[in-house]
């Protein structure tokens, strides 16, 4: 991120604001979509994240990459949205946490899983707790490095690795079971 662009944003330059939003909106929207699994909520959370970031822009000291800083803000915004959603869910006496269940109202972004393996993996991912699911999202959807994930989540790289490792062990098991089912179901030649 160009520090001059950030400085111009801090001073309220409209062109710089537009350029910064354009550069980062897709990444932030995808992050929000991956956390909330709802296109409309993800749009709201993206807007909220940018506004929160601009409000806090003076406190950004350049210790981490701007994108990492912005992602950590978006994560908090999305967590807040999830909490509100949970409260709404409690009110409607639905006990199951709907986040990532895949049973939300379908949106254009929600694609049907093509294969048994993908469906099994998706189910296994949705069953991970947030501590282990988040590094998997950040690594395999958002393609962040271990160091970037550590910075975003405020933990050390060793912890990121151990969380990834625990999650991958569970996911590998789910994938293997799905592959075995596929082989069994395939008609013999």
């Amino acid at each position: 991120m160009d520090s001059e662009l950030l400085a111009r944003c801090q001073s309220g330059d409209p062109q710089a604001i537009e350029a910064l939003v354009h550069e980062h909106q897709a990444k932030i929207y995808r992050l929000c979509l991956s956390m909330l699994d709802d296109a409309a909520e993800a749009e709201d959370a993206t807007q909220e994240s940018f506004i929160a970031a601009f409000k806090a822009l003076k406190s950004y000291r350049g210790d981490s990459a701007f994108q990492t800083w912005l992602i950590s803000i978006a994560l908090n915004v999305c967590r807040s949205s999830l909490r509100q959603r949970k409260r709404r869910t409690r009110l409607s006496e639905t006990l199951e946490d709907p986040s990532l269940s895949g049973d939300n109202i379908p949106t254009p972004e929600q694609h049907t899983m093509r294969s048994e393996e993908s469906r099994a993996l998706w189910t296994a991912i949705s069953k991970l707790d947030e501590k282990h699911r988040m590094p998997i999202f950040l690594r395999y959807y958002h393609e962040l490095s271990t160091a970037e994930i550590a910075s975003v989540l405020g933990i050390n790289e060793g912890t990121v690795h151990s969380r990834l490792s625990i999650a991958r062990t569970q996911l590998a098991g789910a994938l293997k079971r799905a592959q075995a089912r596929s082989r069994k179901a395939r008609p013999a030649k």
Partner: protein
Amino acid sequence: MKALNHSEARTLIERAADGLLTSDQQRALESHLQGCADCRAYAGEFAALEAALGDTFLERWGKPQLSQATENKLVKQLQETFGPNGGSGGGPGAKSFGNWARWAGPLILLVLLAAAAMATLEFRAAQPKQETVELMLDLFESETPTPTASRTATVTRTVTKTPAETPSPLVLVAIPKRNANCREGNGNSFDIADTLFEGVPYTPIARGFDNLWVQFRGPVTNVKCWAFIENIDLLIDEVVTPIEEIPESLLPFVGYPPSPTPTFTATPTSATQPQCSDGIDNDKDGAIDMQDKDCKDRLDNNEFD
């Protein structure tokens, strides 16, 4: 160079994927893989899992972005709020554009009231400027909106004191020693509500009875949250002060929230011992119990963070 066994090689395959191998480890792994078909197969399975994960996410979400119209709307909102003619972020949040309109009226009213209060202050008592600012902060940071009359009464009562009777107010701030999670309660079992960034000053609201957790208003989410005392420095008038020495008038004691209901089944470890004293490397980072820097003390039941 020591030869690797299969278990070590498989650990290094994962560490390699996460970009954590030293050059010595890289060489040792390559050497092992050359002579071990089983571990080469494991590496192949691991690569297939990584590819399948990437594919699953892409199938699920693709690579979407905001529509052009939504992006334009967001840019316009930011330019209006933070641009040269904007209010530079005085608003409370941005759930939607409607929210800004909803806040605008009360905000203007509050500013006018505050301005009137300031004028009253200057006219009646010629109070020191710093105290006026403190009063203004009290008005804005009041947790529960109070009726206008009550706010005015607070200001009036305070300004009847003479300057000689009012010592300079002590200023308490908290500065995180590192990026610190701010959680919904006093423990790692509570959800993370916000993040306090290293080196940035924040105003603490309260503390728990045991002086171990300090309550803040989340800078981004604006919800109340708790940070562990070991992650922050507390400063009174810029002097680092142990929490035990901070007067209750500056940092009152409040009760902790009730423990959260678990939403998933925890990995079974020791049924009786906390993770930081059970002799197990629960998070598999190579450090056990208090050797693990994620352990705060032997009673900490979370070796992960």
